[in-house]
Each structure stands twice: as structure tokens, then as C-alpha cells.
């Protein structure tokens, strides 16, 4: 089946004229048209432009001037600005916003020849771990209609998992690529902070936000990361470092690789089945020549409170621009300026977003700044130091991505703390700015779950290498919701 093929296999098929770009794109559009009314993975489809682009790519292929990924159907999380296409960030606030420019990630992937078939659903402004905070309604987990897909990149994860597109873009501020990847049984990587430009990516928490690929396999992730990564003069925080060819490191032997087993990750709250699966994976890595070393990350326990101060603080400022003045949602008949602000924001933003804006405003306000924001930054430094020490002993750190498999829709919506604990294993790498990936290592009660690999700065290649070596020896990443139902 075309939709089970890897990017490399598709490119070969296209080269061999087994099908055209147009046929390829039509295949995925047909799948998406069929499945999405139920899944709700997409907010906006771009089928018409996708077909045109496919025809164009076919022409380029026939005259030998096609870019490297010509014809690969993808989808963009609706947090990336796309010129001429509605870009909502999952919010009523931006329901009428058509971006006048492309995000750098979008621009690079288009230049490489990929074709976007739509914009994927997400938690509003990327705030959420279940995709239930979208103005456009929740996304269903392709593995179970009753389960959430995870969030905030839930639409992208569901679309890739259900094979509605070959790959998708996501963003990760506290786990928003890795957690839904784990819950939907796909591979996702959040690169080092600064590895991928944030230009055109709607900001949630600027010092934590990072884009990344969400794919069926580590190999596909490496191929997309090659395109997405790189310095961008339009983003001062992007890293001015050369981008290696990530596909080159995929096949490095694991012999001598030191893998950190972080004891703090395996305590209360972790589903024992997930722990067992991770132990099994570790045995496999050992068998492939890797060495397991126990490491400690003692400050990890402070990560969630620190994150829920820093991220809302930055968000409180980042979302101030949505004021009803220049674009976006504006309330009906405001009586004066204050009314315009109050009602536009009260009506245009969802509850979780408003809650985080209030938390963040509080944390930054006079008299509380030192107790909250400043203290959270100190914790952030401690977490960084923990990792720096751990990476003196090991090359990669292994742990779970999520405490459990996908929970039920509505299960945690009234319990924010329990919802926030979803990110307990993923948040530390955002706070430290480290790269981390998740790939599927098991199933429980029909739902997939992932293993997380955290790497040192700019060591994405090694993360993908380990995941790829695992995927060469296992089939978890090949399981699809269709095959199981």
C-alpha cells in the first residue's frame, strides 16, 4: 500500500514511475476525505492547491529538475503561518486570519518539493496535552475513537498515524510532539532549541517552543529534519551551526554507545507495562552493543511547576497581540477601548488559554516576580546542570515519553493537574533546550506508547540513530490502526 511506504520507498516509486505525484497526492486526499470527518485531524484542507502542486512536481520530475522530496504529501500543524491559507492556532481568535507569509519551516519544506494537503488540528495556541482545547473540536485517536490523540500536535499525530499524509510538522513546548507521537504510535522528534527556525510559528512560550517532524519512522524523521533544520537570520534564537546529514548517522552501529537509565523516570505514576517495554528495549540495545549506565536527574521533580510558571509567563505576553485591534476576532459593537479589549479577548480565547494568561500575568506581577518567575528560572538552570552532568557519563538518556497510554476523551478535562502531569517526562528537555524524540515500543489494550530518547545539544543524529536501529529490529512503528481493527 502506498500509504505504508516510507519516504525513501515513495521517492523510488516516483522515480520508477510506478505512480505519479498526482496519483500519490490523490491517494492521500482520498484517505483524508474519507477518514477526517470522523477523526477531525484537519482544520483546513488544501486539497486544490495540493493537486496543482502535484501536477507541477510531475512536470519537474519529467524534466529532471525536481527538488529532492518532490511530491511527498505532508500536513502542517495549524500553528505555522501559510501564505494565503487560514492559520488559526486552533483558536476562534484567529479563525479569520489568513497569513500573508510562510513560516520558514513551511517555506523550506515547500522548496524541497513536499506538498501540504492541509493544516492540522491542535490545542489552542499549543496549550494542552489532549487536543481537547481546540476551538475546532477534539481530535480522535485513530487507535480508539474514545481516546485522545495527545496534544498539542494531536491533529498531526493522528493524521500520520491514520496514514492520511506521509508526515506532518509539529511543535513542542513541553512535549507537544513527543506525547501525541507516543499516544498515536508514531515517531516524533523535538530538536535542540534553535535547531529549527521559529519564524512564522505562532508563539506560545518563546524560550521553549521548537518545531519538529512527526513521521512513521526515524528514517523519515531524519529526511525531514535535514530540510527543516538550519540557521535563519529572521530568528535571532536560531542556531548558527551547520546541519549534518541526519540520514548518514542512522546506520551507525550501537557498539560502545552509552545509554543513561534515569532512575527518577521509573517511579510512581508510570504504567508498569510501559516500564516493562522500555526494559525490553534496553535489553535489545544491549544486545546491539550499547552499554546501560544509571544516571540521576534529581531536579526533574521541579520541572512541572517551573514549566507552568515560565511557559504561561511568556505566553501572557506573546498572546497580548490578540487584542481585536488589527486582525483576528473582534467583539460586536465595543463601547470603548477597554470593552473592545475585554470582550474580544474573553470571547475570542478559550478557557485553558485564559487560565494560562492569568497564571503568567500573576507570576510576572510586581511583588511575585522573584517568588515565581525568577525561582522558576533558577530551577531551569538546575535542570540544565543535571543534564550536563549526566551527559558527561552517557551519550543518550532513555525513559518513557508518557506515564500512560492515551486517556479517554473528557477524562482529564476537569483535572488540570492530572493533565499537566502528562508532560512530566517531556518537559525537562524543553527547559534545558535539549533534543528529544519518541518512537513506538509497545501496545497496551490496543493503544500504542513510546520510548523517549534525550540527547545532548545538537545530537539529533544520535537520537535518530538509536531509534532507527530499534526500528530495524522491530515492527511497533509499522503497526497501524487499520491493521489492528
Amino acid at each position, binding site marked *: 500500500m502506498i500509504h505504508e511506504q516510507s519516504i525513501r520507498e515513495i521517492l523510488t516509486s516516483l522515480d520508477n514511475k510506478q505512480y505519479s505525484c498526482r496519483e500519490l497526492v490523490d491517494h492521500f486526499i482520498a484517505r483524508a476525505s474519507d477518514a477526517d470527518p470522523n477523526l477531525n485531524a484537519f482544520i483546513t484542507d488544501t486539497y486544490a492547491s495540493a493537486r496543482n502542486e502535484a501536477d507541477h512536481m510531475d512536470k519537474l520530475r519529467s524534466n529532471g529538475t525536481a527538488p529532492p522530496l518532490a511530491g511527498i504529501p505532508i500536513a502542517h500543524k495549524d500553528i505555522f503561518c501559510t501564505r494565503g491559507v487560514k492559520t488559526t492556532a486552533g483558536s476562534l481568535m484567529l479563525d479569520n486570519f489568513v497569513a500573508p507569509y510562510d513560516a520558514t519551516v513551511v517555506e523550506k519544506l515547500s522548496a524541497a518539493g513536499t506538498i501540504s494537503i492541509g493544516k492540522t488540528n491542535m490545542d489552542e495556541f499549543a496549550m494542552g496535552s489532549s487536543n481537547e482545547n481546540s476551538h475546532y473540536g477534539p481530535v480522535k485517536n485513530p487507535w480508539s475513537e474514545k481516546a485522545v490523540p495527545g496534544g498539542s500536535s494531536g491533529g498531526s499525530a493522528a493524521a500520520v498515524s491514520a496514514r492520511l499524509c506521509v508526515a506532518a510538522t509539529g511543535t513542542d513546548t513541553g512535549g507537544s510532539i513527543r506525547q501525541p507521537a507516543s499516544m498515536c504510535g508514531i515517531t516524533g522528534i523535538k530538536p535542540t532549541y534553535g535547531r529549527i527556525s521559529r519564524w512564522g510559528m505562532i508563539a506560545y512560550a518563546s524560550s521553549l517552543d521548537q518545531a519538529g517532524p512527526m513521521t512513521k519512522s526515524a528514517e523519515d524523521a531524519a529526511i525531514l529534519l535535514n530540510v527543516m533544520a538550519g540557521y535563519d537570520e529572521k530568528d535571532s534564537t536560531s542556531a548558527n551551526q551547520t546541519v549534518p546529514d541526519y540520514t548518514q548517522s542512522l546506520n551507525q552501529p550501537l557498539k560502545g554507545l552509552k545509554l543513561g537509565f534515569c532512575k527518577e523516570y521509573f517511579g510512581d505514576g508510570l504504567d508498569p507495562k510501559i516500564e516493562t517495554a522500555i526494559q525490553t528495549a534496553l535489553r535489545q540495545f544491549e544486545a546491539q552493543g550499547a552499554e546501560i549506565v544509571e544516571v540521576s536527574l534529581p531536579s526533574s521533580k521541579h520541572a512541572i511547576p517551573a514549566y507552568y510558571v515560565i511557559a504561561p509567563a511568556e505566553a501572557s*505576553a506573546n498572546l*497580548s497581540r490578540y487584542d481585536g485591534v488589527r486582525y483576528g476576532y473582534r467583539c460586536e459593537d465595543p463601547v470603548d477601548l477597554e470593552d473592545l479589549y475585554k470582550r474580544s479577548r474573553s470571547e475570542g480565547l478559550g478557557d485553558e488559554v485564559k487560565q494560562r494568561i492569568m497564571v503568567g500575568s500573576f507570576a510576572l506581577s510586581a511583588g511575585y516576580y522573584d517568588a515565581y518567575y525568577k525561582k522558576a528560572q533558577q530551577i531551569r538552570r538546575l535542570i540544565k546542570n543535571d543534564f550536563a552532568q549526566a551527559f558527561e557519563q552517557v551519550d543518550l538518556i532513555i525513559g518513557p515519553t508518557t506515564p500512560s497510554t492515551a486517556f479517554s476523551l473528557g477524562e482529564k478535562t476537569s483535572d488540570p493537574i492530572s493533565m499537566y502531569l502528562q508532560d512530566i517526562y517531556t518537559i525537562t528537555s524543553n527547559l534545558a533546550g535539549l533534543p528529544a524524540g519518541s518512537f513506538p515500543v509497545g501496545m497496551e489494550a490496543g493503544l500504542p506508547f513510546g520510548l523517549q530518547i534525550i540527547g545532548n545539544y545538537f545530537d539529533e543524529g544520535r537520537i535518530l540513530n538509536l531509534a532507527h536501529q530499534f526500528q530495524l529490529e522491530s515492527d511497533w512503528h509499522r503497526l497501524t490502526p487499520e491493521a489492528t481493527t
Partner: protein
Amino acid sequence: MSRADWEVVIGLEIHTQLKTKSKIFSGSSTAFGAEPNVQASAIDLGLPGVLPVVNKEVYKKAITFGLAVGANINRRSVFDRKNYFYPDSPKGYQITQLDLPIVENGQVTVELPSGGTKTINLTRAHLEEDAGKSLHENFHNQTGIDLNRAGTPLLEIVSEPEMFSSEEAVAYARYIHQLVTYLGVSDGEMSQGSLRCDANVSVRPVGTIELGTRTETKNVNSFKFLEQAIEYEIERQIQVLESGQTVRQETRLYDSVKGETRPMRSKETATDYRYFPEPDLLPVEIDDAYIEAIRLEMPELTGAKSDRFVEQYQLSQPDALSLAANIPLADYFEEVVRSGGDAKLANNWVRVELLAQLNKDNVSIENSPVTADQLGTIITKIADNSISGKIAKTVFEALWRGETKSAADYIEEQGLTQVSDSSSLEPLIDRIISENPKQTEQFRAGKTKLMGFFVGQVMKETQGKANPQQVNEILNEKLK
């Protein structure tokens, strides 16, 4: 109690627009006077997903200013977000510098109009972005927003509260204005908002140490208004205190029509700005080499230039200072000297003739129709007696009016060179003496005033080209 019983304490925050082609965080033009919003890019509009990138030119301007006031240049400075909602603030926050400004601890000494000098310490100077403008008029009872100015780079220069009169405050503000203009840090166009003052004013009973409660009068954009606003505040605060009330710490606005200050709405003053470090920008790291390179490129400061002019060109102190205080004029002067030689003549011509013409025709020195090179030629010809001062003025005026020939060619073609050749002057003078026997007789009888008559005759015959000094000499000889 009377005014004499109170001591006034003033500190100024001066916002000066930096003279850069593009904005501080976007590539949009900073030119003044464009149609609303044509100079507002996605970044200036605060669209979703945009990011600021610092225009490096602003570091250079800030450091130039810092060096000129002997300040510390912080090797590491940090941008912060200052959060507040206002329609002309498109992001809902202003990017500024709070805890780690680029410039700290400078000092200036200014001359006071009433005599003497005053030294004022500068607390800091930090970089920030300007806001846009709300337009309340001609909008059918709505408010229009023009974001052309949003993101214009500003350097906010903060003084210590150590000025004790409006005279000192205005003298300081004028000095800063002159300095930033001279350094090319700002264009100094106050009518376009390039320099705006916030005046912090308080009063306390003479002899007390503790500062009184201050008010901040914002956005005063002329020196006259600054003086009026401060004077008004002093009187108002004294009245409040003498009537037994207390001064409220508040932000006020100066109404130049009514000549009074009044409080801004209290809601705007009660804002908690929730500052925190701007996560979209890395800390600004400045190294010594960068600072030294700027120091080398800096224009000579007024004092140093004036001293050099006295030394190098033997100008009087006041002449040197008046040239040095005006960079383009001083540059023009030095160019005239380079191509013309005589500094004393150049000084007179530039400061008197040229300035008079520039003022009369309202032309800037950069657009002078007479180039420094041409004026240099004219002065050379005066110095070597080729032309008289009077002819020189004729030449200068012709060039000013648009004569396109070079000064030398014009003098040559119009035959304006002085006749200094005695072999051609002597026969002419002999003839004039013989043609005017009566006057010759009277002169020889002692009526020496007639010398003017003879010189006039020679000038008439030579159409003014004879060297007057030489004519005098020959006449004196022949009329003996």
C-alpha cells in the same frame, strides 16, 4: 512661605530617535511623513509568528553616545518586555531594556545661559522601540492607528535627579540635543518627534535632604514647552504643599495651548508593566574591539575640535567654537583650508559670507551652491593678490547664483584678474596724470584726499582689475 523657601529637584528622561535607515527590529523604513501604515511590515504590525531581529546599527549609535558622555558600555545588555495594552503598541508589549541597559553612568557639563557651568550625571541610556500613533481626528468618531513610527529605534537617556531649576534642565536638554545631533546619533528634528522629554519634578523645603514626591510630565517636545511645563509644575506643587495637601505621584501631560500640566488618566499610571527578559532576543554581547572601532570612527567632539582649530589654524576661541559646534560647517571650513590655504580668510568667508548667504536663501551647508573647493580657489586668488576682496565677492555671488564654470575659469574668462604688472599700469597712470593737470596741481599743493580720485580713475580704466595697493604705490611715486 514663598518660592524661595522651596528647592526644586528635576531629573529628565530624554527619548531620542536614532538616525537609522530602518527600524530597530524590522527592515521597515524610518523616514518621516509617509502615508499611514505604509512603513509597517508584518513585524511592526505584530502579526502572529513574527520575530524581532535587532538592527545592529542601533548598538553603534548607543555606544557612540555612551563614549561621548564618558559612560560605561555594558559588555552584556539584555532586552526586556514591558507589558501594557494600547492600540498603538501592536504586540501588547514594548521591547526595552530594564536591568541591563547598554549604557550606564555618564556625565556631561553644560554651560548655563546665566553664566557658569553645571555637571549632570547620567544614570543610563537604554535602547527601546517607539510606539505607533493613535489618530483621533477626522476618523468619523473612531480612532485611527498609524504604525509607521512603531519600532523606530529610541535611545532613552536618563539623568540623575540633580538639576535644580528649569534653566538647568533646559540647558541640559539643549546640550543633549546638540550632542546627539552632532554625533549623528539622531537627526535632532524636534518637530518630527526626534527628541522628547519626560520631566520628573519635585520640590522640598530648602535645607531638607529627603526628596519630595515627584510627578512625571511626559512627552514634552520643545525646549520652550519643557521650561513652561517645569515652571508650571513647580508652582503647582508649591501651591499644593503650602495649602497643606500632598503631591500625588502621577504621570502628567503638558497642554501647550493652555500652558498647564494635567494628570493622565489614573488607570494608565497604575500599570504594573510585568517586565521580563525578551525571550525572542539573545542578550547583546559587545566586545572591546567593537567599542574601539566605534571610538575610532567617532566624530571629534566639539571641545577637542575647537581646541584643535585654535592650535592648528590660530583662530580665536569663540570663532573656533562656533565652527566646531556645527560639524558640517567645520568640515566645510577644513575643506576650504585644504584647497585654499589661508585659514584666517577661510574662517571669515565661511562664518560671515557663506553663513549669511545660507541663511538668506535658507539653504543647508550640504547643498551650498558654492563648493568648499571653489571657495578655496577664490581665497587662494585673494591671498596671492590675483583678485581683490571686492572682486572675490562678485565671483562668489556669481557662483552662488548658479554660474557653472569653475571659480578659476570664471575669473579668467571675465578678465577679473588684478593688473599688478607695473609695466602696464605705469603708462596708464602717466596718461591719467597728464589728462588731469588741475587735480595733479592741487594734490601736489597738499590736497592728498585727491588720491582717491586718481585711484578711482585707474580702476575705472582697468574695470576694477588693477591691484589697488600697487596703484597707490605708483601714484604716490609719480605724484611726488
